[in-house]
């Protein structure tokens, strides 16, 4: 384990090449959003929507197209909680952890859910069906606790309602 070997790993080995279909998606996203002012976030959102994530190999073509350094693009990807380098499970549950939901028992609800699914925040169930992410406020604070499942809002959740929701997602 020499230090030079490690460096080679992180530079070349970590970046799997892009499949042709993915490259085409990225090209299409850049064609659609690349010429806007400050285009990087719209481009990254577009890539993540098409591919489910922003694979490390996507950084170079995005940087080239927007005339940015790869470091700048990677820096932006890593800064924002939304962007991920690997795809999530088939369904994504965003459970609110913020104060209004805390006031209605969200802490216990989250503990219950994560224990039941056997995962941590950001984790995915073993069968790849469900990823649970923390979110700080969904603007559903008068009907707490709240969550978004695949973009659909749910409110006044309790353990039973949340379990039912997750079972439904896991089965689908």
């Amino acid at each position, binding site marked *: 384990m020499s230090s030079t070997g490690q460096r080679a790993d992180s530079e070349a080995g970590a970046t799997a090449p892009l499949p042709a279909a993915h490259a085409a998606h990225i090209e299409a996203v850049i064609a659609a959003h690349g010429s*806007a*002012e*400050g*285009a*990087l*976030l*719209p481009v*990254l*959102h577009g890539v993540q929507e098409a591919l489910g994530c922003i694979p490390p190999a996507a950084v170079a073509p995005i940087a080239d197209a*927007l005339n*940015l350094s790869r470091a*700048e693009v990677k*820096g*932006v990807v890593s*800064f*924002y*909680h*939304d*962007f991920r380098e690997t795809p999530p499970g088939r369904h994504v549950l*965003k459970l609110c952890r*913020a*104060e*209004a*939901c*805390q*006031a*209605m028992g969200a*802490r216990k609800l989250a503990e219950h859910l994560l224990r039941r699914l056997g995962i941590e925040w950001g984790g995915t169930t073993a069968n790849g069906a469900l990823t649970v992410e923390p*979110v*700080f*406020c*969904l*603007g*559903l*604070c*008068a*009907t*707490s606790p*709240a969550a*978004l499942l695949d*973009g*659909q*809002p*749910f*409110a*006044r959740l309790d353990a039973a309602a949340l379990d039912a929701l997750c079972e439904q997602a896991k089965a689908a």
Partner: protein
Amino acid sequence: MTRVFLPADAAALALGADAVLAAVEREARTRGSAVEIVRTGTRGACWLEPLLEVETPEGRIGYGGVTAGDVPGLFEAGVLGGGRHPKRIGRPEDLPWFAHQTRLTFARCGIVDPLSIEDYRAHGGGAGLAHAVSIGPEAVLTHIVESGLRGRGGAGFPAGIKWRTAARSDADRKYIVCNADEGDSGTFADRMLMEGDPFLLVEGMVIAGYAVGASQGYVYIRSEYPHAIRTMRAAIARAHAGGLLGADIAGSDFAFDIALRVGAGAYICGEETALLDSLEGKRGMVRAKPPLPAMQGLFGRPTVINNVLTLAAAPWILAHGAAAYAELGTGRSLGTLPVQLAGNVARGGLVEIPFGAGLRALIEEWGGGTASGRPVRAVQVGGPLGAYFPADLLDTPLDYEAFSAAGGMLGHGGVVVFDDTVDMAAQARFAFEFCAAESCGKCTPCRVGAVRGMETIDRIMGRAEAAKNRALLDDLCELMADASLCAMGGLTPNPVISALRHFPDDFQPAAQAAE
């Protein structure tokens, strides 16, 4: 044909509004009743959602908290004629909950079809812009200054001064940026407005653009608001078709355009300079001020960056006059504040009232006390960076200066109620945890201080040299408040210090253990 109104606001959807819609359609079909269903925003009484309304000769009759299972019974009771039913609430505007509000910004929200520009105009929309272009940019600036309108995002900076500064800055291009990165827990007014009356925000941005000579607007909406994003995007497209955006707006030679941008889950982007960096395609890092964004903002150009509610207040001010707006409120807090009642509250939702009302009246009269029925123990006003108030501070009037004098802040008007089961040491620790997760990392007091704060509270609660660590915590809070670059690090001590000051017993692990 009977017109039926059902909100498509995210809060109503979260409580099953789409299932109610399907049930109404099914029931109407089975019974051969002709209904036209209009999807509205919410009127703001989240506790009454889904709120089904039916147009009758007596006005719109509401049925609150309707479930899909209620629908056959409602039809049996003659809902389409406003028939009697346990869920019937009569005309919503007659309920004290609505009747006692002063709805300026939210006058149309929940009533109109949010994406119908005809409906918008029929309910008074566009009058502010029409007046603005008839009096000219300089007079518009005077109106905003004289109205006393202050930034509704939290800082409360006079909007007219900001607009005037941008107007007086020479540049080839200027921008209006709407901060719709409403990340404070307990707040949802921006979301509600964008989902329920998006053309009002468009009109407010156009007025701002006209006043300062800007050609391009951006609405930056957080990604956690998919419904607001969809509605706002559709509204911008329709505003073009309806002559509210584009060239020659409202019969003038003024041209203005708006683009929508979506955030990516960073709370710090609600800070105005971090938001500008994010719009430029960068990490959402806070900028040092000066230069002020009004002089050098987005892409280095003069930029008015205002919260949704600030921009949305402009059309009313232009349509009704600065004096009418400034008559409402108290001291230097003029006009109305859309308060959001949230957390452990029986009747939560949005209440728009003039500044100056007491917090207790809001929580008791509008909120109906806690949802759990237990006593109120703490109330956090102004989001995660706001102070926790104990029950004996609830008579503080809703006024920027009064809140500041009481060691708190009004912020964006979110009021989160906690009952007596709350553990204030856990809340204080969360304030640091949140800051550690969301700090942009540019300045050390915030980036490192948040982590150290969390560790110090853990040591206090773990009974490791509690007195020494209490002193350390006070020091750390003072340092973060004085030396952080922006409000994130600078205000994180607010919830911590208020919890320590008002709820000291919760920080006595030894006493708890002895109980």
